[in-house]
């Protein structure tokens, strides 16, 4: 079942690239069906594990996949986001675009399901390709595609080097999800930084974030919703399942650096977000800020903060996907993303305004929606861990979040109607279906986060408590 989760989207996606039947609706239909099937399989695959031996020398490695623990929730998030993104697709050359979305889904399934470091690294590189091709084919500026690819591939290479060193030292890379695998020795700090560099670039964290605003602004809405919701979580996921599990001593040792970087991202992202005029860049910088908070949570070595991080990973995925989808709708209607050119759309498009409102409120942390739950748990955990200053800085950033999210919402929806903006119809039913699952999930998770919380940290509790007592 877990193999099918990866193979189905990839195979269908590649087939769609080759079979040249130009029918936008049919392409979307096939894509949505595949994404739906993947979602159903993902739900059914909970706890499933499968393994096929790949290498026995120079270290053991297997195509080992498992939908357990934290992976399961991120995989569900990925399946939902891809489904929504495909329904929301509204770009020229729909067939190729949907195909790339499916390949991206399959590749990221591989990243989050992999139970083997080498397989993880393999899919890590693979998941860059669809985004690169979409940026080349649909983006406005070619340099953006380069920047995305070079930055992330550089990360992928240090990941590869770290994996090779890990394999040479430990003799096996089939370790993700196992407990009691600790790497120590002269090489271990290098291995740690090899992994950490890749994860920091992918998340991204200041000062490695410069590829991110450009990429998020240039990629069409549906794809960027998946990238921001799920792909950016690959780094955080890596910190939790690799650095925290196998290199806890070094994560502990270098935690101050990560906390400082996280805090800078948190504030820098929030202030930068306040001044952006491109609506997608507003959300891009807000992402930098929110993910900085999660980095702090992971580096704080507190079980509660870690649980909060897991909730917030899912919550951020949901609301950033929704934000980017809705901003994509706005862009396709008004043909501009400039905040100063937009205004007063809400009166004529109440459903569009409502969708943006829910997403923005979730992003600024309104109680009752998922974002709040994650933030508050992280803050309590970070405070418990004795990190008072980061917690205070996080509070500042959360206040700023209200400012930039309301600025975004009001700039687009409220105010006097701008005369020369084209007046277009409200959300179509298809677009409505595309954002409804995300909104629903935000509310459900906001009211009852126990499903995600109740579970999860068990595998890492050992290492985290060990870290605390040391």
């Amino acid at each position, binding site marked *: 079942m877990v193999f099918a989760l990866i193979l189905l989207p990839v195979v269908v996606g590649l087939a769609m*690239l*080759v079979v*040249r039947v130009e029918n936008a609706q049919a392409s979307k239909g096939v894509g949505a069906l595949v994404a739906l099937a993947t979602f159903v399989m993902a739900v059914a695959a909970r706890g499933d594990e499968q393994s096929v031996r*790949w*290498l026995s*020398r*120079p*270290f053991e490695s297997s195509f080992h996949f498992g939908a357990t623990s934290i992976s399961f929730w991120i995989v569900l998030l990925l399946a939902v986001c891809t489904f929504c993104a495909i329904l929301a697709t509204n770009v020229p050359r729909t067939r190729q675009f949907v195909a790339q979305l499916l390949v991206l889904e399959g590749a990221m399934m591989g990243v989050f399901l992999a139970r083997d470091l*080498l397989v993880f*690294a*393999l*899919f890590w*590189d*693979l998941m860059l*390709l669809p985004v*690169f*091709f979409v940026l*080349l*084919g649909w983006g406005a500026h*070619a340099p953006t*595609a*380069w920047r995305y*690819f*070079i930055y992330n*591939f*550089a990360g992928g*290479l*240090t990941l*590869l*080097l770290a*994996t*090779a*060193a890990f*394999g*040479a030292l430990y003799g096996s890379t089939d370790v993700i999800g196992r407990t009691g695998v600790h790497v120590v020795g002269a090489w271990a700090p290098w291995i740690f930084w090899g992994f950490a560099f890749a994860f920091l670039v992918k998340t991204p964290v200041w000062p490695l974030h410069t590829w991110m605003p450009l990429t998020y602004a240039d990629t069409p809405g549906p794809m960027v919703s998946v990238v921001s919701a799920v792909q950016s979580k690959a780094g955080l996921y890596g910190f939790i399942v690799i650095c925290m599990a196998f290199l806890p001593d070094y994560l502990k040792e270098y935690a101050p650096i990560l906390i400082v970087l996280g805090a800078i991202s948190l504030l820098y992202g929030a202030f930068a977000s306040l001044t952006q005029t491109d609506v997608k860049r507003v959300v891009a910088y807000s992402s930098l800020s929110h993910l900085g908070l999660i980095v702090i949570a992971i580096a704080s070595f507190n079980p509660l903060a870690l649980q909060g991080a897991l909730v917030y990973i899912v919550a951020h995925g949901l609301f950033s996907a929704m934000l980017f989808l809705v901003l994509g709708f706005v862009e396709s209607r008004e043909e501009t993303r400039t905040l100063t050119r937009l205004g007063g759309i809400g009166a004529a498009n109440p459903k569009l305004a409502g969708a943006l409102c829910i997403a923005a409120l979730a992003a600024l942390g309104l109680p009752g929606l998922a974002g709040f739950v994650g933030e508050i748990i992280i803050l309590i955990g970070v405070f418990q861990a004795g990190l008072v200053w980061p917690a205070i800085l996080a509070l500042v950033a959360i206040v700023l979040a209200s400012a930039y999210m309301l600025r975004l919402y009001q700039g687009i929806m409220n105010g006097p109607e701008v005369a020369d903006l084209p007046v277009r119809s409200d959300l179509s039913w298809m677009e409505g279906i595309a954002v409804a699952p995300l909104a629903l999930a935000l509310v459900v998770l906001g009211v009852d986060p126990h499903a995600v919380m109740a579970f999860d940290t068990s595998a890492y509790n050992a290492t985290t408590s060990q870290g605390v007592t040391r």
Partner: protein
Amino acid sequence: MTQSVTANDWYSVAPLSIVAVAALVVLLADLLAPKSVNRYVAIGLGAAGLIVAGIDAAYAFHSNYAAFGGAFIVGGFSVVFQEIVLAGALGSLILYGAMGDGKRIGGTVALLLWSTSGAMLMAGAGNLMTIFLGLELLSLGLYCLCGLSDRPTAREAALKYLILSSMASGFLVYGMALLFGASGSVALADLTNPMLVSSPLYWCGSGLFFVGIAFKLSLVPFHAWAPDVYEGAPMPVTAYMSVVTKAATIAVLARFIYAAVPSTIAAQLLLPIWVIAAISMIVGNVGMLAQHDLKRLIAYSGIAQVGYILTALAGGTPLGMRYAIYYLAAYTFMNLGAFEVAALLSDEREEGSRLANYRGLGARRPVAAALMTFFLLAMAGLPPTAGFLGKILILTTSVSAGYAWLGVVLIVGTAISLYAYAKVIRAMYARDEHGHAHDARPAVPLAWISAVACCVIVIAMTFYPLTPSNILPLVR
């Protein structure tokens, strides 16, 4: 050591004899066959000879036999390299079939086959004489092949190759003479004598030998000839040089590194080679950035890829040798695949190697563009290709053999190379359609089939990473 030549000795050189005889058969058939089918007869017979030789060679995989008093050593090592050489030769032959212009090519095919038999001799060479014999047999054929084209650049390339390659041979043979002077024997096995360490002749001889080999492998700083010659030569010959020549020379170098260096001084004696490999990885990959021709791009890429292969050999571990061979095989099929796709884009007037012609290819010929993208990404080492797995295997051995710095250089080189490869990919998928629609003949089934076959092999090698286990001992 006087020893009579036995039947077994002759059996052990049967594969290369088959190739050499096939060349004669091709020449004969070329005379007799009618003009209309002549081309296919020549290529078909040549391919048949290569395949039969490949099957025959495979039988010797589990043997370990020193024929002709140690001059030619048959075993897993020689067989694996011979198979790679044969695969490369077959790919070049198919390129001739895919992009020729209807002239008689019997002579060309015969030269290619004779060259190949020289390369096969190098794969099993157990003493310095055989190495030189094989190398010259390989090179003499190539000098002619380089010039066998109507384009003036081909003649320039042939002359350049002749002069520089002869100079390299000079270095090589001078080094061999000094080694012989030091050890009193031409056998590689006698070079392991620890007494040699004190002989200055030995050090000078080894140095000159390495210079000669580095010339042939076009390693930095002896690489300047490669881009020009690759660009000027006809495409099948370029493919041949980039695969077969390198494979055969690496066979010689690997055997020398593993079996003919006194173990006490191996680390010092071989250090310059690793340094050269590191420089090659950087210079080769940087050199790729400015190229406008696929053949030049592949010349520079080849410089770097040989650096990767040498990285695997650093440290002299048996596993390192296996991964070097694995990567060499992967490199062979990636390169051949890229050339097969380029052949699809060729026509009578022009070879499909100018990168300007690749602009907008993704829209015009999506499958060809996808295949080319695949091969370029494989060279860059992206998954799911053998290039990815090969790199991680090489990284692991270099780390565990204590040459982590080479691994780091490999990573840096790969990052640079990606930019160069991705530039071509970007040109293929860029939306602007300014590129003149220079389109090729509609279908060349042979090139299609072989490009797809290369693609399948490169993927299959990732998931079934067979590396030859029976490659040691190399010398008796």
